């Protein structure tokens, strides 16, 4: 019987994950599977509910990015009511969403990505975590990180009443507006967050780009994937997180499609495998061709890097500077190096902070026309937002009484199910070779493949050791004969 390696559990996208590696008799990788072992069935159990309740229910798909589900749901519900939304509400929702992005991106970069670079990818796992990062960069910076993330959460709370599991969006607008005294409280926080994004970029340049080994790892490690790119863009093909059209560009830069939310069904479909509860989206026009890379592949990724790959420019000036510098340094656009997602995240965060500044300066933002009462029920809506970890689609239909008759959800991380499966196999096959026993180092190198995709849990903030629990088990003839585990 061939040996197998199980990596179980890994922390994942929204719950639990598992990697199963099958070895040949010579010790090389025969095959590798990335499996998601759970389902909760939202698409079924929201049916029969008042449609306006859905945004309050679907937040519970993910407590790490609830605002993404809330906004996509709210937009789908707006569609069900004919689409009229108070213009001020659109601004407020967008403003909220930028703060939400910052909280998530800070958490991911500092708690999960930074340990690999600040401490080093093969440093002692006991200190390769956020505490190790704090030890290296100093308590002052550690405190600044916690403060910045807490401010991003607080801005959401002021705007929408809640951050995790917000209940704020309502057909035609939002349930509460922003008072002048609340705006006064937000302003200094936004100023600090803007400074913090600049600081983060500088830190990245010093720590990561200042180290040729890291640059080599990013550009030439096994962490590349020849698949297509997806992201939401505005009319100028600049990234937009709350609204816009979905643009898909192949890895050589050719636009494959650009569709409005209502046309998602003609462009994206989902494939099912019996060995995972999570579906595998692909480009529908090309058909399902299996887990294959290449210019004709129907597999795409939806990540911070893919968003910047499909964008021709950023929407704000400082972010534009960062964008030009990033692609100038990488010397390829689109960039296929998955690790560049960490950099892309910081570039996006600059746009988030600049947009928050813009809204703080908007004289209309504290207005009181944040809701309109819907005039009728048209019965169908598709809402697409760019969740932090990928394009998120919610499609609802309802009857004439506004009761949900169907819901279809294509979730941010789900887009990346196939790419994660593929890159896991690629990294494992690169590292586990005949005659080479996998050692503790493989754990972090496999994890790094994951981390570039920011699996949903990583955004949860300054997680302590900030690493995914991985276990590699080598089984020979049904007996465990070697095991690797991180030390606590």
């Amino acid at each position, binding site marked *: 019987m061939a040996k197998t390696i199980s990596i179980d559990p890994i922390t994942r996208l929204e719950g639990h994950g598992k990697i199963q590696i099958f070895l040949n008799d010579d010790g090389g990788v025969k095959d590798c599977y990335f499996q998601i072992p759970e389902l909760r069935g939202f698409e079924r159990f929201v049916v029969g509910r008042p449609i306006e309740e859905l945004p309050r229910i679907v937040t519970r798909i993910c407590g790490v990015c609830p605002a993404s589900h809330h906004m996509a749901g709210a937009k789908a519900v707006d569609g069900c009511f004919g689409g009229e939304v108070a213009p001020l509400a659109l601004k407020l929702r967008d403003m909220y969403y930028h703060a939400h992005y910052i909280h998530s991106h800070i958490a991911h970069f500092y708690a999960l990505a930074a340990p690999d670079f600040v401490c080093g990818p093969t440093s002692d796992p006991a200190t390769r975590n956020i505490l190790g990062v704090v030890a290296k960069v100093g308590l002052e910076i550690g405190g600044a990180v916690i403060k910045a993330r807490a401010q991003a959460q607080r801005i959401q709370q002021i705007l929408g009443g809640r951050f995790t599991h917000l209940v704020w969006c309502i057909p035609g607008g939002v349930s509460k507006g922003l008072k002048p005294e609340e705006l006064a409280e937000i302003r200094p926080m936004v100023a600090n967050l803007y400074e913090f994004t600049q600081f983060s970029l500088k830190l990245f340049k010093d720590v990561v780009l200042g180290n040729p080994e890291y640059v080599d790892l990013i550009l030439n490690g096994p962490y590349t994937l020849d698949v297509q790119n997806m992201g939401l863009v505005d009319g100028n093909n600049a990234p937009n997180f709350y609204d816009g059209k979905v643009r898909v560009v192949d890895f050589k830069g050719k636009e494959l499609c650009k569709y409005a939310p209502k046309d998602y069904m003609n462009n994206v479909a*989902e494939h*099912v495998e*019996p*060995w995972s509860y999570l579906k595998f989206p692909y480009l529908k026009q090309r058909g399902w061709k299996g887990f294959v890379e290449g210019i004709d592949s129907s597999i795409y990724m939806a990540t911070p890097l893919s968003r910047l790959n499909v964008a021709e420019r950023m929407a704000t000036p400082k972010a534009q500077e960062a964008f030009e510098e990033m692609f100038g340094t990488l010397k390829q656009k689109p960039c296929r190096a998955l690790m560049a997602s960490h950099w892309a995240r910081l570039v996006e965060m600059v746009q988030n902070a600049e947009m928050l500044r813009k809204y703080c300066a908007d004289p209309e933002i504290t207005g009181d026309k944040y809701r309109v009462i819907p005039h009728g029920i048209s019965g169908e809506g598709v809402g697409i937002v760019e969740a932090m970890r990928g394009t998120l689609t919610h499609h609802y239909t309802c009857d004439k009484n506004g009761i949900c008759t169907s819901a279809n959800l294509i979730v941010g991380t789900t887009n990346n199910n196939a790419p994660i499966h593929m890159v896991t196999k690629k990294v494992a096959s690169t590292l586990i070779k005949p005659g080479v026993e996998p050692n503790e180092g493989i754990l972090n190198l496999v994890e790094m493949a994951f981390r570039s995709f920011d699996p949903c849990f990583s955004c949860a903030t300054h997680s302590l050791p900030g690493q995914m629990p991985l276990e590699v088990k080598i089984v020979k003839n049904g007996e465990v004969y070697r095991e690797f585990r991180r030390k606590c």
Partner: protein
Amino acid sequence: MDKKKLQIALYWGAACGGCDVAVLDTNEFILDVAAACDIRMWPIAADGKYKDIEAMADGELDLAIFNGAIRTSENEHIAKLLRKKSKTMVAFGSCAHLGGIPAMANQFNKEEIFEKAYLKNPSIQEGNAAVPTPHTRVEAGELEIPVFYKRVYKLDDIVDVDYYLPGCPPAPEQVKAVLKLIVSGGPLPAKGSVVGASDRALCDDCQRKKEEKMVKQFHRPWQILQDPERCLMEQGILCAGSATRSGCGVRCPNSNMPCRGCYGPLPGVVDQGAKILSAVSSIIDSKDPAEIEKILEGIQDITGYAYRFGMAASLLQRSVR
């Protein structure tokens, strides 16, 4: 491992991650917890594995904090494992406490859920007949995923629970207060207590003006512009506040939106949904059966309103189709 430190584990079953975020939203306090405790397992943050837990002596953990409901065989297995190894077990958040939002699925059977997710769905490839199965034979060998159960259970359906910390998610300040108590080694309340919440109803803490609760017509939240100062129920907007434990900080009514009951029933209440329904029936301003009927037409999906978070803890339990 430091014997003097508190040995703790945090785990999630069928959950969304919001409970873990609630722990992390205690901000710098989490560093104090890390200093005072050995976190032996916390999939989001620390490094314990199932194997490590299995290798422990029974009762070696001082505390296990479990969030999420029980939806699959894996959820059940780990809940039982952690129970065996822990002196104290806390059901953290609405899902572990009452079943939570995932328990809304108990109105449907497993086949209906699978059909919608994998077979009849606008973006599923034409002709797909594949659905996830516990065991799949592939060329290279055997692949396994957990069994999806017929229904969702709350944690104490599966294991003995010492304390309940309610909320979806629990308010971070409540989480902090409870963790502080545990870390300081202070006297703990009686087994079975609900912690991190009050014994009052949400209405008692809600600042909205309450006058007379008599309603001729129910409205859905989008149908009228709410008066931000006045009780939502009095305005005809269904709000579960009177039948729900307080402790969240009144966060939904303060957002101008009605409560949906995530903190669970008041002390001594057997079925939160029944209490919510009696609150509704008590405010209908009519004695005429035909008129009452008409007023009630303004309410849709009463089950999903009364049992938004508590289906697994209700007398109804689940669909038996």
